[in-house]
């Protein structure tokens, strides 16, 4: 596909046109990670410049989406509705390497794969998502996650947490521990509390839910708290950092959450652990001491390793939250910028939007939006734009936003996976 600019160049160059055209189209891009950011980046690269060789490295055959996975906990949705394959990515002309990336050599511009192959690239797009900092919360490791699920990567963990809730006696206490910023999906723990409360109200009406938080404030806080008071009075208790909510260790054998002030024994314990960029980011040298990946705000190229771009939850994106919407938006901007850079042109400053819906009940939605632009080396909120749903609304505003949320999920998954 020739852009108008390239077309003009082609016309002017007349006799030399074929050489110019082919030189512009050559390029090998490897994308590591097939979530909302990576799958979007791979498909968009091929759509913008079909002559690129684009390889997506992703070990899983099926992607399980986190947005709406709290609906699975509330039994209003099945895990199969969260799952998407890569047929659409392949149809877009992307080569799928169904294996893990085990090493990146930024100097040699190669990615080593678990199957023993090595891919060379002209530009690398890394979208490794998150991994957990198992060492950060004493008592919580991969074995503990089988007793106290995180369910913060959707899939088997989501199903496990749902099964535990269903097996719980009526009257049992559900405890959620919520981490300090930054982490994947800032409003997610509170949407989860809401939808579990919705389900408890129907099936386990004597049960209560406790949120132990390592923060004093959270996304859409007043909207959530007003809705909890309205829909689930007396069910959800939130303990902030300054009230002693920070969990300092857990005991998976007894499902106990330990804080500086108390020990909370849960009937069902959901630990949302501290997080970092997906492990390959550190191996590639694109993660800094925070565990996340600093990038410049135009093409999202790593400030630590030239030629490597990082998008999605793994990247430090200034004011933009770690959301599926943001990952998809960043990936599209990054793909366009990579096409420009490979053609020897300078990418223009982008504008990006984020929109995050949360469900407080299946028919009660709230949202937060923002618009972002590069400013002083970071992606910054445009002042005066964005914000949350109003605290006071009339008519069917909340149910309308729940419908928008559902349509958004259908759209973003189609945008990402084809």
């Amino acid at each position, binding site marked *: *596909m*020739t*852009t*108008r*600019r*390239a*077309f*003009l160049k*082609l*016309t002017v160059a*007349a*006799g030399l*046109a074929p050489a110019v*055209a082919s030189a512009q189209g050559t390029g090998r891009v490897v994308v590591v990670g097939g979530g909302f950011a990576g799958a979007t980046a791979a498909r*968009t690269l091929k*759509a*913008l*410049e079909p002559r690129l060789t684009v390889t997506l490295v992703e070990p899983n055959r099926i992607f399980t989406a986190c947005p709406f996975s709290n609906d699975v906990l509330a039994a209003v949705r099945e895990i199969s509705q969260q799952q998407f394959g890569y047929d659409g990515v392949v149809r877009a002309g992307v080569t799928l390497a169904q294996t893990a990336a085990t090493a990146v050599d930024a100097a040699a511009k190669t990615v080593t794969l678990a199957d023993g192959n090595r891919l060379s690239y002209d530009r690398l797009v890394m979208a490794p998502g998150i991994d957990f900092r198992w060492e950060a919360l004493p008592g919580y490791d991969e074995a503990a996650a089988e007793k106290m699920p995180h369910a913060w990567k959707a899939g088997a963990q989501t199903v496990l947490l749902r099964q535990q809730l269903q097996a719980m006696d009526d009257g049992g206490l559900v405890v959620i521990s919520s981490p300090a910023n930054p982490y994947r999906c800032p409003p997610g723990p509170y949407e989860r509390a809401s939808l579990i409360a919705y389900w408890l109200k129907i099936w386990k009406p004597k049960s209560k839910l406790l949120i132990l938080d390592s923060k004093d404030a959270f996304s859409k806080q007043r909207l959530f708290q007003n809705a909890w008071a309205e829909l689930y009075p007396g069910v959800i208790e939130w303990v902030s950092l300054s009230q002693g909510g920070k969990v300092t260790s857990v005991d998976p054998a007894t499902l106990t959450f330990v804080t500086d002030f108390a020990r909370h024994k849960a009937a069902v314990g959901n630990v949302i652990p501290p997080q970092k960029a997906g492990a390959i980011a550190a191996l590639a040298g694109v993660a800094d001491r925070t565990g996340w990946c600093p990038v410049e705000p135009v093409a999202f190229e790593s400030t630590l390793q030239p030629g490597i771009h990082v998008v999605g939850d793994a990247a430090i994106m200034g004011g933009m939250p770690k959301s599926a*919407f943001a990952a*998809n*938006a960043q990936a*599209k*901007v990054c793909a*366009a910028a990579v*096409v420009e850079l490979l053609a020897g042109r300078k990418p*223009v*400053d*982008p*504008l*990006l*939007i*984020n*929109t995050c819906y949360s469900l407080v009940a299946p028919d009660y939605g709230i*949202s937060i*939006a*923002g*618009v972002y*632009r590069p400013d002083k080396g970071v992606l910054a909120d*445009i002042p*005066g*734009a*964005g*914000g949350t*749903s109003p605290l006071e609304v009339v008519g069917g*505003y909340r149910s*309308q*936003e729940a*419908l*928008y949320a*559902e*349509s*958004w999920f*259908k*759209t*973003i998954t*189609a*945008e990402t996976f084809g």
Partner: protein
Amino acid sequence: MRRLLLPALASALLLAGLAEGGPARAADAPPGASSCTGCHAAKKIPDSVIPRIAGRKSSDIATAMREYRSGAWPSSVMGRIAKGFDDSQIDAIAAWFAAQPE
């Protein structure tokens, strides 16, 4: 594929002003436009309550954005989003979506 055209024919088309015709390429999307498709997808989404904007009249899209921005047209997220865009950015995005296949 335009690149397959003979240079002479391409020049003739350019002179005739047809180089501007045809669907706008995604690569030419103005700043902000690619984020819009997170909700307003390029392809048709069954059972979506979010309106499609690809192929709509440029002036209709631009007017809607301005009215969302001013609050003249009530909205949920669109008013908050439109406040991040100035008139020229709105016009460029509206023109680009108008040129996309319906």
